[in-house]
Every structure is written in structure tokens, then in C-alpha cells.
């Protein structure tokens, strides 16, 4: 990991929304060609991080360099050009509901290229084959299960042969078999296509089996990073609670409330 250069470099990133600070002088490097996982408790801004990397939202301050280009300095057209080199898998698949499976995967091709219809067909079927759904090409989006929809979205994300692939909570709501399928695809695609994969998730178990590097976020900062194995034994209460799935710790069990007995007794006394 020392030899491979970072394809994404984030330095001193600060971002606040509605008075709430989400990122405070945040640093992170994503190594080229590896599967990098971003984990953390709910609400730490993992999805926001993805939106900052793809510049769907702009940082308040700090620098984000993607493939050498500083995001803040790019024009609209340049951002669009950069996004074509990235693929993103949304949490619920985000397939276009008025198109069939085939048309959904073909969508980026039809929008960005002037390829021959036969070539499009071959490309789409190839990508569907890679995710195991070539036989489902003519189905409508309503006929797909959650896992299948996500796989179609994955096929769509790779149809333009991107350099970076981003997964936003890809395991949520999947049964064990589907999870296994997605895991296998993440690893396979990353290695076979030479991609850089960024995985946002809070499934510790799944991450451990597929990630090369893990970043654990909490309170707007990176509290731990390393390989999955290193994280298991990381000397920090925050990390231990998260990795171990402990109910109480630095992230408290009780929502802030007034004194328990005081509240009960007051109820008895009042009419």
C-alpha cells in the first residue's frame, strides 16, 4: 500500500450542514486498485463523504483530489467528464423505473456514446453476464428482487468501464445468499477490471472479508484506519465498541434524558 499512489486524496476537509459540523479537518487517502471501506456509526456522514467525492455537494474548505484533479477548481463540464470515469452503486439501486433491465444498463452508453446498436447490445449483455443476470435482460424493474436490482445497478455502474467504483451501503436489506453474491462481485470486479473500489457500509463482517483497507469514521474524523485485521485489535474504545457491536460505550445506549427517579416521582405527585 506504500507503493501504490492514492487515487483520491482528501486533506483538511471541512463541511457543515444546518449548523451541524459533519467533517472537521478530515484526512483520507484511497489507494489505487484496492478495495477501501469506509465505516462508522449511523449519521457520521458516510454518504455525505461520497457526495463530496463526486462533487454532488461542495466542501466548505479543504482539498479533495480525484485522479490528480482538484475538485473545487473544476468546471461543470469537467466534473461531468470526471464522473464518467466513476461508477456509483446507490443504496436502493436507483434504476430508472420506466426502462427495462437492458435499457437501464444501456442508459450511460446511449447518453454518452454514439455506439452502434449491436455494439451496445454486446456490451450490455457482457456486463449483465458479469453480474449473473444476462437472462433477466428483458425484465422490467418492478419484477426484480432487491438483490437483483442492485446487481443490475452494478452492471450499469461498470458499463462505461470506470476507474473508480463507489458502493453506498450495498449489503443493506439483502439475504445471506445475495450478500455473498455482492461480496464476490465486488472482489472479482475490482481485481479483474483493475478498479479502485470504495465501499461505504457498516457491516463489519462483510467488510472484513473483502476490504484491503478500512477507515472508521466518528465525530467527523478518522478514528482508525488499517487492514481489517489491524482494526480488530485497535486500541480505542470507539473502535472496540463498533467492531465488537457492543450496545454501550463511547456511543451511549441512553438518549439524553432527565433524572429517571425524579421523572417517575414527579408523575406520581402531580394531579
Amino acid at each position, binding site marked *: 500500500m506504500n507503493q501504490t499512489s492514492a487515487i483520491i486524496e482528501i486533506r483538511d476537509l471541512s463541511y457543515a450542514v444546518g449548523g451541524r459540523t459533519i467533517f472537521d479537518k478530515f484526512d483520507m487517502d484511497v489507494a489505487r486498485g484496492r478495495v477501501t471501506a469506509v465505516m462508522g456509526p449511523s449519521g457520521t456522514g458516510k454518504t455525505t463523504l461520497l457526495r463530496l467525492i463526486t462533487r454532488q455537494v461542495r466542501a466548505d474548505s479543504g482539498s479533495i483530489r480525484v485522479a490528480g484533479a482538484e475538485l473545487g477548481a473544476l468546471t461543470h463540464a469537467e466534473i461531468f467528464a470526471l464522473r464518467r470515469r466513476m461508477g*456509483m452503486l446507490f443504496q436502493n439501486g436507483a434504476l430508472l423505473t420506466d426502462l427495462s433491465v437492458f435499457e437501464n444498463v444501456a442508459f450511460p452508453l446511449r447518453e454518452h456514446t454514439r455506439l452502434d446498436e449491436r455494439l451496445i447490445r454486446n456490451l450490455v449483455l457482457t456486463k449483465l453476464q458479469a453480474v449473473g443476470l444476462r437472462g433477466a435482460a428483458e425484465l422490467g424493474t418492478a419484477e426484480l428482487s432487491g438483490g437483483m436490482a442492485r446487481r443490475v445497478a452494478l452492471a450499469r455502474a461498470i458499463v462505461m468501464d470506470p476507474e473508480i467504483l463507489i458502493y453506498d451501503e450495498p449489503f443493506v436489506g439483502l439475504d445471506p445468499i445475495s450478500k455473498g453474491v455482492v461480496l464476490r462481485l465486488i472482489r472479482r470486479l475490482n481485481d479483474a477490471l483493475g478498479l479502485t473500489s470504495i465501499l461505504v457500509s457498516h457491516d463489519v463482517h462483510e467488510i472484513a472479508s473483502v476490504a484491503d483497507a478500512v477507515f472508521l469514521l466518528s465525530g467527523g474524523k478518522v478514528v482508525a484506519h488499517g487492514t481489517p485485521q489491524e482494526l480488530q485489535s485497535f486500541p480505542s474504545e470507539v473502535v472496540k465498541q463498533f467492531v465488537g457491536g457492543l450496545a454501550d460505550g463511547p456511543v451511549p445506549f441512553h438518549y439524553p434524558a432527565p433524572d429517571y427517579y425524579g421523572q417517575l416521582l414527579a408523575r406520581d405527585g402531580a394531579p
Partner: protein
Amino acid sequence: MSDSLVRLGDIVGFLGRIMLQVPRALLRFQLIVDQVYNAGALSLVIVMLSGLFVGMVLGLQGFELLQRFGSEQALGTAAAIGLVKELGPVVTALLFAGRAGTALAAELGLMRATDQLSAMEMMAVDPIRRVVAPRFLGGVIAMPLLAAIFSMIGIYGAQLVGVQIMKVDAGSFWSQMRASVHLIDLNEGIVKSCVFGVACSLIAVYEGYHAAPTAEGVGAATTRTVVTSAVIVLFLDYLITAFFL
């Protein structure tokens, strides 16, 4: 009050964004054709039924009123002018807002709620060009045609009641109409329906595109579409009528 003005400004700004994308959106003509179908062809039934009934009522009321002055022969004129200048454009616009407008708003709101619009942005496809502009253009094209159909069927309805049932002389019905209705009246009606088309389509796509990504958000967007469209249409109706006078 100031909220409404701010929203109005946002809506006009949105129109600007759409217009910028229209030239490139026209290149995907099939998308626009699909949207003309959704906005227009699917609204045909309600427009034609309403036109027929409105025309028939116009025939009844007009006949009763004109009879007091002994001028039943002017029924054709009254029905034609009432429909072409006012009822055609306005009622069609309100029906359009209710049927096609809400469908547009709901569709876009749902696309917003299921991240389809974000996904498109991620795939470097401008959703305004690919999704919003064709729907907007579909509505703008469909409205004047729907209003014309409404007026035509309405005149037939008035004729049905006036000539067939109330025994107004058919020759007078049509000849007086032809003599008294001028091209400028028709122009006024066409201008109105075009302007209403722009207004209703714009409001519908605006509300849908900016809906909150929840079930309540989509519902609120459809309600606002109908209410805002109705108010704006009636207001514009006054402006255009005054302008033509």
C-alpha cells in the same frame, strides 16, 4: 406572502434552466413524443367528456338567457365565443393541471425520492435535459391542442342542445357565429392555451423536481401543483383578456 414571491422567482429561474436545455433535449425527439402522449393523448377522454358537457350546458344556459331578449339565433355566437376565448383554454388548463400536472409532479417526485435523479447526475447525465425538459415540452405541445379539441367538442355540444333539442335554426346558429367570431378571438384563445400550457407544465415539473424525497413530500408536491396551477391560470387569464381588449 414573501414566501410565495420567492417561490415564484424560483419557478421562473427553473424555467430558465429548462430553456437552456431545450435545444439539446430536442435531439432526443422520441422522448418528447412519449411525453406528448402522456400529457395529451391520455388526457383526451376527460377533455372530450368535459368539453361535451360544458358545451351542452352553455347551449342550455345561453339559449335560456338569449331567449329573454328574443335573440336565440345568437346562440352560436355566444357558445363559440365563450368556448374559444374563455372556457376552452381555462377549463382545459384546470383539467390538465389535475390530470397531467399531478402525474408529472408525482413521477418526478418519485424519481427524486428513489435517487433516480441523483443517479443520473452521477452518471453525468443532466436530469433537466433528459427527464424534465421532455416532460415540460410534452405539456406545452399538448395543451393548445387539448384546448382546441375542448372548444370544438363544446361547440358541437352547444349545437346538440341548441339546434337538435331547442330547435334553434341551424343556419342562423352557424352563420351568425361565422359572422361575429373573428380570427382575433381565436388568436386570443390560442395565446391563452399556449401560455397556460407553459405555466401548468412548468409548475408541475418544478414541484415534482423539488419535492421532498418522502411519501408526504410527493403528496404535498402534487397538491401544490394543482393549487398553484389553478391560481396562476386564472390570474393569467385576466391579464391576457385585458391585453386583448
